[in-house]
């Protein structure tokens, strides 16, 4: 065995022999990493959701039923040139009815109603997509003030905006709380790990003198403790992965369809290795930092 293998084994032994102390330490570290990762995942996932929603955002201008299709097409060609507008689609009332029938094919009540009703209750509309979400306001204002505004039945837009703004506010709040809690717990986690390692050092106190007399280099004496710190970090990373798995599974039904057509579980699985890698790096970094602090302060050699 090389020195690295030996110090590795020694560190692992120390980790096991600490028993409940190791368990407690890993638990605290797990909580801190869990909070941070959940916050991050919420952050990333909500960005995706937001982009999604914004991508699906549109302004629907419904025209009164007596307005001719040709007039609507005219209006459309006038609007198409506006620089804020990305696209305008004309949806005739016939097309609208078709889509509506298709979408509500499972709903008995609606289908039956449609069969009974004479004529088409739906209106023709122009579906306008802006190049970016902030421009919808401008577009809506422009339409309201336009010459054809009398032909407009109603504009379906405002509700989306409110919902989006609420969504953004909630997410911001969640992120702030998450980061604050996360930092607090990381601080605690590092402290607890550092303490556990210090205890291990204390238990091995008499060995240090002998190690020096027998010609062990400082690195050889220190390495087991660095490894111990790494084990605390790695173990908690794995625990967090499992916790995230459980959480995702639990939240999957609630979030179905919201993230790029999947749910939070799909997100977790598709990003599995990145999440694992980041967790391992952070866990091991935290463990190593704790070990280094303990060594600096308490390892007298």
């Amino acid at each position, binding site marked *: 065995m090389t020195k690295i293998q030996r110090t590795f084994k020694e560190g692992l032994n120390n980790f096991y022999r600490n028993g409940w102390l190791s368990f407690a330490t890993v638990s605290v570290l797990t909580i801190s990493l869990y909070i941070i990762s959940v916050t991050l995942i919420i952050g990333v996932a909500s960005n995706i959701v937001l982009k999604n929603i914004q991508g699906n955002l549109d302004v629907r201008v419904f025209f009164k039923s007596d307005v001719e299709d040709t007039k609507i097409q005219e209006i459309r060609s006038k609007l198409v040139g506006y620089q804020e507008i990305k696209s305008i689609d004309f949806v005739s009332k016939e097309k609208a009815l078709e889509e509506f029938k298709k979408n509500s094919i499972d709903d008995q009540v609606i289908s039956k109603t449609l069969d009974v009703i004479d004529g088409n209750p739906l209106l023709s509309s122009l579906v306008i997509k802006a190049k970016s979400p902030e421009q919808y306001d401008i577009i809506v204002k422009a339409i309201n003030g336009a010459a054809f505004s009398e032909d407009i039945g109603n504009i379906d837009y405002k509700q989306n905006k409110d919902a989006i703004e609420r969504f953004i506010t909630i997410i911001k709040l969640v992120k702030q709380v998450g980061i604050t809690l996360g930092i607090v717990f990381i601080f605690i986690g590092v402290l607890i790990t550092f303490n556990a390692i210090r205890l291990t050092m204390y238990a091995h106190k*008499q060995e240090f003198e*002998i*190690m*020096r*007399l*027998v*010609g062990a*280099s*400082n690195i050889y004496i220190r390495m087991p403790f660095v490894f111990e710190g790494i084990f605390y970090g790695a173990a908690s990373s794995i625990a967090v992965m499992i916790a995230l798995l459980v959480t995702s599974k639990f939240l999957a039904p609630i979030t179905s369809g919201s993230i790029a057509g999947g749910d939070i579980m799909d997100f977790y699985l598709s990003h599995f290795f990145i999440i694992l890698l980041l967790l391992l790096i952070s866990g091991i970094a935290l463990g190593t930092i704790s070990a280094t602090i303990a060594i600096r302060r308490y390892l007298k050699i």
Partner: protein
Amino acid sequence: MYNEKVVKFLNKNKKMLRFENVSKIYPGDFVALEDIDLKVEQGEFISIVGHSGSGKSTLLKLVYAEEQPTSGIVSFNDRPLDSINRKHLPFYRRNVGTVFQDFKLLPQKTAYENVAYALEVSGESDEEIAERVPEILDIVGMGSKMGKYPRQLSGGEQQRVCMARALVHHPLVIIADEPTGNLDPTSTWEIIQLLLKINSLGTTILLATHNKVIVDKLNRRVVEIDDGRIIRDTEKGKYSSVKDKA
């Protein structure tokens, strides 16, 4: 046990150990050693005597670089010890075997593991260790008790394990600081015999002791320290310069 040519070469040209005008003063102006001049050749067996607190242990500590002199130079094979980088001290220490009164064995390791440990820290392979450790334990007469823990061994046996550990790097010098202090007369003599045996193979021995009987029986070089100074340095010396009433 190791290359005879090396030993001969060392004998010829260099002083294995040399103290030049060495003093050691601890904080609080406590003078442990003063004006120490000492030359040791390879292969010598030196008893360092003096009552408790006279500075014997301090002298030995300077040899294995546990302490550095306040003034003067301690050299090993003509190389001043203070020129050794702190990082390299461990490598120097592998040239010096140490044996102490309180054994300093690791209680949770067997005799074999205690000796093996000294080799592990210098990165020897498992095969090397499996070969050398039983060999060395045999030399000290502990071959049959390799698997025992220190608590299962008598004082004399524990000390022999310590000697095995001290020998494992084939050191040029062995420092024995009151190795028989906790032992009964029989074990004491056994340990001394072992030291003599090791010495006959070429290793220099520095033995600090206040066991009068041993020193007189050994009839080797004696260096007497009193109040931090060397007051006597004789070949074939006795413990005390005062003549016994025959």
